[in-house]
């Protein structure tokens, strides 16, 4: 079950990067070759980018890829070190939890708005933040119970 989710999120990131690349190439093609710029390419790229950042940040939590400073923790005696290591997942859970709650609020605020060109509901873009938040909580909680 967890494996399916892990792979699903990673493939979503891969797909989003592919969409951004192809979309921008189409944009360049339309502007310089067709000389009639596709009006939608900018919005598609920016919406995909938003999702890429928040889903990718969740994958980074799972892979431990977010950069941190470990110099002081390494110098601590073992029992203090164990306590300090709990603080990382705890902080991730708290901040990601805030992303979920506040992101949900933002989605409700923006429920009626749509993007300028494509008329896409803005809440679809905002949704990246709470969804990414849920995934980050999901990936950080197991770290709390790590031996």
């Amino acid at each position, binding site marked *: 079950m967890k494996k399916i989710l892990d792979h699903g999120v990673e493939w979503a990131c891969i797909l989003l990067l592919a969409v951004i690349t192809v979309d921008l190439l189409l944009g360049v093609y339309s502007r310089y070759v067709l000389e009639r710029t596709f009006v939608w390419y900018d919005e598609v790229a920016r919406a995909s980018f938003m999702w890429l950042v928040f889903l990718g940040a969740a994958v980074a939590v799972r892979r431990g890829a*977010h950069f*941190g400073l470990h110099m002081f923790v390494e110098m601590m005696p073992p029992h203090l070190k164990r306590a300090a290591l709990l603080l990382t997942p705890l902080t991730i859970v708290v*901040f990601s939890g*805030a992303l979920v709650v506040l992101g949900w609020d933002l989605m409700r605020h923006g429920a009626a708005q749509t993007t300028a060109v494509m008329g896409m509901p803005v809440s679809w873009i*905002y949704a990246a933040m709470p969804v990414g938040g849920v995934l980050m909580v999901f990936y950080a909680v197991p770290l709390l119970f790590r031996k």
Partner: protein
Amino acid sequence: MILVAVLVFLVLLGLGVPVAFAIGAAGLAGLAWSGEFPLIIIMQQIHQSVDSFVLLAIPLFIFAGMLMETGGIAVRLVRLAQALVGWIRGGLAMAVVIAEYIFSGISGSTIADVSAIGATMIPPLKRAGYRPGQAVSIVAAASAMGILVPPCILMIVLGSIANVSVAALFVAGFVPAVVLAVAIMAFIYWDARRAGIAPAQPMTFPAIGKAFLQAVIPLGLPAIIFGGILGGVMTPTEAASLAVLYAAVVGLFVYREIKWRDLPALMARSAVVTATVCFLLAVAAVIAWMLAVAQVPAAILSAMQAISAGPITFLVLTALLFILLGAVLEGLPAVVILVPTFLPVVKQMNIDLIHYSIVVTAATGIGLFLPPIGVGLFVSCGIAGVGVDKVTREMMPYVMMLTLGLLLVIAFPWLTLVLPRVFGL
């Protein structure tokens, strides 16, 4: 509000919490503590800072870089560099600097540069009799300089937060990078003379020609990027998408060093690197906003006026600050938080924004490799299998030379501004 945020940030950072989440929690705590503003401002700041066409260049340059960072391309560029400077005393070490200059023109990420050039050059340096710590220092110093050679992720970020043309920043980096490279190579030459290292090979034009021909395909990438940007026809984001196309064709069909089945893993890695960079940038914007609301920029301005600091003093202080913070915070968050805070001072002092951004970029680059905690230095030590403690003393003269080069750039803004002016950017 600010005090609470800074305290929370420092405590969490010290206890090993990833920078992005330490910053996020600090912003949350600060806002909750003051109670003056609705918490939803956090989300608006995060959304605003990511929702930008300029930043789209980041995933694309990272992706293109990953496609081009295969062993074969690094080896070809190193051969070219060796043919160019191998005949000078200390030429092998100088070739590292030259190769890094060219390689940075392909890859947008400093850490990726270190890995590629380090893995290719550290073994031959050791074989030629360079001490391991010395070999690591040379690669680290060259990579610190390389941050100034575009494309550069930090410049894209600076362009987006300081509202400067990224194209102008890219072009402005070339000459200061040469200044820093010459500073390092001068020390390498002096050191090689002192140690009595003989030149490795004579210079022959056929050899240079051959090495150049072999490097033509990798060199095509910077040619496309800067041809497009300097021709004034393309934005850096558009040029970046063409760079991905070129790199994919080269990797998959010409050199065939990348297999189709490697592609998903490579793209996932690009996505994760992009996300860590941009997530950090997004949450750091919250703190930058808090500093602005708390009138910190005005306080800094009056402090500068109180000590009657001129532009040069201000730039030197900026450089020192970003060297230190670049080492502690991996550069990027310091830039996102502090550059908006300093902008009013920069404008008040009539310092050109392009010049200022280049000084910040160079200082951050030096900070990334500052012993004993610069993250770039750790990566280089990891590649060579040498402890950071063994490199610290060897690295110091290089840090001095880089800083000297930066001071020259600060003293002569012409060095940064000449190319943007020539190209009308």
